[in-house]
């Protein structure tokens, strides 16, 4: 068990190192002198350029820059953002809470939509199932930015039920979380429904029903756990799509967040900031995937070994 955890940790560190290195190389190998980007394509004096080169060590060989940069990261120093003029840790810290709140709210909304939809729709007659599956199709098809704009227009600008300007607090989270949750909720509802339908055809379900277990109990106690397995395998994809979707949703709802920060950083070749965000995103990814691996054992007793 301890060996397994150590292996997993080692793997995660390798993944993070790889991600950071790729980000470093990608930014350095694309065309353009970083100094031009740092001056924002403004007219700049030679003195300004020399100062930038000196401050960021851009005149040293690439290999040396890379080693310097790695050693700083190992010491926990992510450096200063070129463009925001803030330490990277501060810049990310300012935005991280807001994005985590949005992601947490989105996960809640996703579960609240997807699980009941799957439980209601699975193996029912067509008049129940058809609307559910139509909604699933819609949820996947509608782009988040369009849905976000629509939700804003109706519920914030017209009805004035919810604030629009990236308001802190629960009421400011409702609309963005809905916009971001639509696609994942639709996909999960569909996968879960299929899983449930398969499970409900299993002999043990028939056995349970003959014992007189009610329909609700059959679906919740017996069906749901089996149906969840394929969903768990989707969590990795889901994390990626949420992080990607957050960029758009944060912008539409004028929310602070890592998504917008990441776009800005890449666009400006803001190397220290890009690396910082890559590290954070990589960390989230590894944590989520580890948690998923562990959750298989909770969901499916067949996977539990007797090592522990």
């Amino acid at each position, binding site marked *: 068990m301890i060996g397994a955890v150590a292996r997993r940790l080692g793997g995660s560190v390798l993944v993070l190192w790889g991600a950071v290195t790729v980000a470093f190389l990608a930014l350095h190998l*694309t*065309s*353009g*002198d970083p100094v*031009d*980007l740092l*001056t*924002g*394509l*403004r*007219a*700049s*004096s*030679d*003195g*300004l*350029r*020399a*100062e*930038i080169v000196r401050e960021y060590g851009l005149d040293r060989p690439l290999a040396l820059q890379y080693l310097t940069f790695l050693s700083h990261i190992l010491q926990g120093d992510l450096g*200063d953002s070129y*463009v*925001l*003029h*803030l330490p990277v840790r501060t*810049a990310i810290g*300012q*935005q991280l809470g807001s994005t985590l709140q949005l992601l947490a709210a989105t996960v809640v909304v996703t579960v609240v939509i997807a699980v009941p939809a799957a439980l209601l729709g699975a193996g029912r007659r067509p008049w129940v199932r058809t609307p559910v599956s139509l909604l699933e199709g819609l949820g996947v098809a509608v782009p988040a930015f369009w849905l976000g*704009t629509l939700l*804003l*227009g109706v519920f*914030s*600008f*017209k009805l*004035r039920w919810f*604030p*629009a*300007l*990236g308001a802190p607090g629960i009421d400011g989270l409702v609309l963005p979380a809905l916009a971001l949750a639509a696609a994942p909720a639709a996909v999960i509802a569909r996968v879960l429904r299929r899983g449930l339908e398969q499970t409900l055809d299993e002999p043990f379900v028939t056995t349970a029903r003959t014992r007189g277990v009610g329909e609700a109990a059959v679906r919740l106690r017996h069906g749901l756990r089996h149906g969840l397995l394929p969903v768990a395998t989707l969590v990795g994809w889901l994390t990626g799509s949420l992080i990607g979707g957050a960029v758009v949703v*944060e*912008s*539409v*709802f*004028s*929310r*602070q*967040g890592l998504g*917008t*920060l990441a776009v*800005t950083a890449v*666009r*400006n*070749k803001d190397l220290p900031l890009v690396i910082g965000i890559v590290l954070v995103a990589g960390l989230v990814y590894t944590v989520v995937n580890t948690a998923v691996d562990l959750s298989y054992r909770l969901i499916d007793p067949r996977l539990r070994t007797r090592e522990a």
Partner: protein
Amino acid sequence: MPTPGTATTSTGTTGTATATATATAGTATAAAAERRRTAPRTRRFTSRPGVAVAALTALLPLAAACSSTANGAADQAAAGPPKAGGTLTLAVPYGPTCLDPHQGQADALFSRAVLDSLVWQDEKGAIHPWLAKSWKISDDQRTYTFVLRPGVTFSDGTPFDAAAVKANLDHVVAPATKSAGAAQLIENYRSATVVDDHTVEVTLAAPASSFLSGLASPGLGIESPATLTDDPKALCSKIVGTGPFTSAAGFTPQQGITYQRREGYAWAPEGAANQGPAHLDGLTVRVVPENSSRLGALTSGQADAASAIAPVNVAKLKADPGFAVQSAVAPGVPFSYNPNTEKGALSDVRLRKALRAGIDWPLIVEKLYFGVYPAAQGPLSPTTPGYSKSVADQYKYDPAASAALLDEAGWTARDAENYRTKDGKRLTLDFLYVGDYFGPHVALATQIQAAAKQLGIELRNQNLDAGSYVKRVLAGDYDLLNSSNNNFSPDGLRLIFGSAHIPTTKIDNNAARYHDAGVDAKLAEALAAGDPQKQNSLYAEVQQKVTDDAAILPLFNNAYVLGRSAKVHGVVFEQQSFPNFADAWLSQ
């Protein structure tokens, strides 16, 4: 981050230098009883993509059409005396590159609330006392002696004195500050000497008629000397000044900034409507990148004002009695296409003139921006001091003259696609831009391309990444670029047409690569001239000459377009056409 309306080869110098200072040597200006912050003219504007980054140009988001909205004065009369209290919420498309205007591209909107300047410049270009109550200029125009207003304090308790002025000027030009715009405004500054607590003597390396105008710009806002000794980066999120507002928490990227009224403020510029503390308890500026979200926030009452209203929405907002649109045409060099006068097809002046006469530029601008941006007719915007109207008639649509010029230049044959050719070579022009910065104007480039095709010219619009763009600009490997320059001084002409500013080793403003010894000499002479009349006649000659040489193809004048609720009063525009909230108030 996003940046701005348009990009170009260069950056807007946000400063301004101006030449029409009324301060003549040896006397302090008497205050004109001018209203201080300029009333807006009426026009509108476009927005830039939500990028919050240093943009190529300090472009204003523009918007607007001729608006009937009143200027501050008329509005005031209708609304009665100002009421104190309340917090005004303003939605803007992007945040400042750096809150400290000494470093960033003076994003006047964010720093002006907190920082005062030594002098105030009215909309006609006249200079009035502010933190400096009077000044003398030596006969050789190289020494400026300022007498400072007593009793002024920074909000951190530091007294404002001669040492503070020296510390600020030195900070602007210090290499570690890496100034993006402010240092250019006072590039001839050499040193300052503290004579006594309230007298400071500033020495210039060479005469500069634009110096006082530079001091008046938001870029030269005076900060507490106690904060200038820290790491310059810290100033990008928090600044301390003597201004009518303070901001303890500072700016948070992608969120915004909140200001509180500075109690006891009593040193507004001479002639300001409000000589005491601000009427508003607070001012909240929120970054809202999406045009539709900003507009919705305004119309639903979640924001009291929103800048960069998209041109397409201006008319509807103006028609709503609950709202008004205020706009100000930006001074400086208009949003333009800059032909490469050094090499390639456009080094032939006949082709440049053919392009100028053969495309109906004003029509294209009108179609795309609904009259919100006025079509430009000349190398300077009409709101710039020293603007010369006499060149306007050379910017007229005349397709017959254009065709004759092209024929005369030898582009008479036509190929299978009906493009003009000469010696078997097609007449092809490359227009370069960076999509991130030029985004909102792609439709414009497409229209111009179609109009050029009518002339038999193949115009290729090339969207490049910033790196490739810089390489090709420095190599002069292009036919057309785009630029604009917000500058409250005809000295802006020097940055755009002076041969010292041709981009060869680094990005610079002379995208036309224009090099004319006579123009260089006149621009230098105007900068050194103490007499405003002489300056103006020199600048008029330069405008005539670059027009004769068709060294610029101006499209439209940028404008700052502010949508606001009817309960907002007293918002006026200042030097670079940014809104100023020092006199603003809310009626309930």
